[in-house]
């Protein structure tokens, strides 16, 4: 019964958790992300974010050298020196994230202790926390899970009754959701991560947590340990998912169902109207999602149930069956859900099934396009305002756009017959 859960191992084509810095630095502009790693790590971040021109750097890498590896230099002294130089240059930084990498994890550099020590020295001025974004431990969005978990001990305690939205949201989406929850009757709604790293939300027994993102396993555990109740709901992608997600919170706050329906019904009607043109394009199209961000299950559920797409294979880098239980229940019977990856074999399957759309990383997107397979590069989903009932149309548009584009330009770019000349 339910989805057909499978596992695969082999070569993977995914980002490491360091990549989370690319969006976290914008969410919290007063924070700095210092990766402790190699030139490879520095290169990754620079390649990913370097197309933007920064007058003030928001992230950097303390590059381990041969001296650090040979134990010639005390790595901790070096790190202290680099961190202090950095803070001197950027006195406005309020939170410094020391981000672990593969090299620092392999040589067992104790960044937690380093963060503690720096905290003692810089007391009050800058808070230093640590998390790992290494590829050997984390995949892409896992990095955000690590960063939010690391903020855990800094969250103040409260008994106040509140709703906490956890996971990075676009500013406009956040404002909109808070506005809607207020209209529904939940007065205190806060977000983690906040827009300023110093304005951390409090947490405690009165806190109800709604995860906005599916990749926050450790953050959820941390919040439970702090006494919060983490609700189990589908994730707020698409009109249906978002509505169920909001209703779950409303039930927890004992809000009258007719009041909830009164607020949400018009939203849902409008969402269906916005979805219609995209549904027309997506209906009946076959889609494969390759593993990338753990958003895949929620997206597949939305694309199948609200856009009428047919799911060929749904890949995910990691499957937390407890957090994803509600999503799994909504997938059609027998949907292939593949945890892990053997990229070459997975590509063989993609070519064999020749789907209408493949959701994949940028390392694979252009090569697949060149083979005539339409792709939607998946990273964009982490950088786009896609959450909530009002965003359902925009979310569908992200998937219909590549198909529309191909329809629009293919006849001209790949002419098959000669046009008759005008003066025949």
């Amino acid at each position, binding site marked *: 019964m339910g989805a057909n859960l499978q596992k695969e191992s082999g*070569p*993977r*084509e*995914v*980002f*490491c*958790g*360091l*990549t989370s810095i690319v969006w976290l630095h914008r969410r919290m502009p007063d924070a700095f992300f210092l990766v402790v790693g*190699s*030139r*490879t790590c520095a290169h*990754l971040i*620079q*390649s*990913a974010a*370097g*197309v933007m*021109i*920064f*007058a*003030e*750097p928001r992230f950097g890498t303390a590059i*381990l*050298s*041969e001296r650090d*590896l040979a134990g010639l230099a005390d790595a901790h002294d070096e790190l202290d020196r680099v961190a202090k130089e950095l803070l001197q*240059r950027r006195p406005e930084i309020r939170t410094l994230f020391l981000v672990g990498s*593969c*090299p620092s*994890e*392999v*040589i067992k550099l104790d960044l937690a202790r380093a963060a503690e020590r720096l905290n003692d020295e810089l007391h009050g001025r800058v808070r230093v926390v640590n998390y790992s974004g*290494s*590829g*050997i*431990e984390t*995949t892409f969005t896992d990095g955000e899970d690590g960063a939010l978990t690391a903020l855990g001990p800094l969250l103040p305690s409260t008994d106040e009754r509140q709703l906490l939205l956890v996971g990075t949201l676009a500013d406009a989406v956040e404002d909109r959701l808070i506005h809607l929850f207020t209209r529904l009757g939940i007065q205190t709604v806060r977000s983690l991560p906040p827009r300023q790293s110093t304005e951390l939300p409090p947490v405690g027994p009165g806190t109800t947590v709604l995860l906005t993102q599916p990749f926050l396993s450790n953050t959820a555990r941390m919040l439970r340990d702090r006494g919060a109740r983490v609700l189990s709901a589908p994730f707020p992608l698409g009109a249906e998912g978002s509505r169920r997600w909001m209703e779950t919170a409303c039930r927890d706050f004992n809000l009258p169902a007719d009041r909830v329906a009164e607020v949400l019904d018009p939203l849902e009607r409008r969402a269906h109207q916005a979805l219609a043109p995209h549904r027309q394009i997506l209906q009946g199209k076959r889609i494969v999602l390759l593993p990338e961000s753990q958003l895949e299950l929620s997206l597949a559920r939305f694309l199948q149930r609200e856009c009428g797409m047919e799911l060929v294979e749904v890949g995910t880098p990691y499957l937390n069956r407890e957090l994803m239980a509600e999503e799994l229940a909504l997938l059609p019977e027998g949907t292939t859900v593949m945890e892990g990856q053997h990229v*070459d074999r997975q590509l063989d399957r993609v070519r064999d099934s020749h789907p209408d759309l493949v959701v994949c*990383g*940028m*390392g*694979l*997107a*252009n*090569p697949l*396009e*060149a083979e005539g397979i339409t792709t939607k590069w998946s990273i964009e989903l982490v950088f786009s305002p896609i959450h909530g009932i009002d965003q359902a149309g925009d979310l569908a548009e992200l998937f219909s756009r590549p198909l529309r584009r191909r329809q629009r330009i293919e006849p001209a770019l790949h002419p098959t017959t000669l046009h008759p000349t005008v003066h025949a």
Partner: protein
Amino acid sequence: MRGVHYVLHAPQGDTYADLLFTMIERRGERPPVTYTTFQARDLGGDTAELVKRTVREAAERFQPEALLVGESCTAELIQDQPGALAQGMNLTMPVVPLELPAYSKKENWGASETLYQLIRNLLKPQVPDQPQHDTQAWKAEGRRPRVNLLGPSLLGFRCRDDVLEVQRLLTVHGVDVGVVAPLGASVNDIQRLPQADLNVCLYPEIAESSCSWMERNFGIPFTRTVPIGVGATHSFLVEVHTLLGLEPPAADEGYQRSRLPWYSESVDSTYLTGKRVFIFGDGTHAIAAARICQEELGFEVVGLGTYSREMARAVRAAAKQLGLEALITDDYLEVEAAMAETAPELVLGTQMERHSAKRLGLPCAVISTPMHVQDVPARTSPQMGWEGANVIFDAWVHPLMMGLEEHLIGMFRHDFEFVDGHQSHLGHSGGSGADTESPTTSNTDQAKTATGLAWTADGEAELRKIPFFVRGKVRRNTETYAREKGHLEISSETLYDAKAHFKA
């Protein structure tokens, strides 16, 4: 290259490097690289077995003509010796193990070493007992002379079009191109390298060690001049012709075939004279840029540096000729500090210098890697040869304020649209970025500088009248002058004194 596959022992996540090729170079195929992508849980097991399995799978699936095997920075720490493992697997194709010390060497060194090892391994059987080579053998054989182009690669700066341009340049002069490597070369092409009369080393950072090995072992000489700029292209042609025993080309060929010389001579360019330029990049492009700026565009080079330590000596020599001390560093903060110190009117650098130039509010053009996607353009845009010089003229002059606008802003400073630092030809409103003279602007009567000098209100006012891009330099000169004379206060008179003193 084609037909060469690379097995890279690396943790999950290092596949980000594929994006450099699929996005920045916009390639329509996956790079021929298989990663072992080990994870934390593999570290408890047998990572060496993982390497062997990956090598076997890659060899079977892709059937390459040659296999490179190496490790990334993290794999280097766990020391599985993947190269040696692969060599012991009795594969049918040649296996080239790579030793690339990730904690002491960088990208260009890695590319140079890999090309060198590949050429060395594949050509070893052909090496003669005594290197003997006649660059003029083509005459006796009754054919056109033939050269290899060595150095162009993906993720190099404009390599795609440089190859086309140099090929065209040589063909016009009756010289054929044998093999281009590594860009687009196959294993078979590498084996044909010794059949050329001469090696053309287009990118020394990548190909010098290979060229030098072939010179030692086969006796094939290689060119030292990189044809970027009109003058350098001429020198390059003379070098090639002389080595091949051809009559050198006419001295005015560059003037006839490139538009840079006339564009630069035309009166519209007069205002470019003495514009202060700061240059930073890889060794090859920095040296070439310095020559173009100084000799062909009439700029004044006020800073020259490189991150290529392997090219440090050549860059120091070039800097010395300009009366400068070369900046050899890979610390972008040091570059930024040097840039601020010299207060240039134009920065020619890498993608990183664009950040610093934005911060300092300076016009900037990219002349070298590291670069991003906008520097792999669809249009033909070489840096080398006659057309390369045309591209360079446009690209380097474009960020500067146009002549008329510069004059008018110097005359009338109260406009509501064309304000200080504004460059209307770039199509946006407002200044071009941060204000270079911000540290002491204030409304108090006297503003103290960091050095203890004080500008009087009338001194400040006079300074504000100096056109935007040279204001930084005038401020610096005036302060230097005041210190030399022991003045503690800088008035408008001091400013004019300094101006006369420094003749600028």
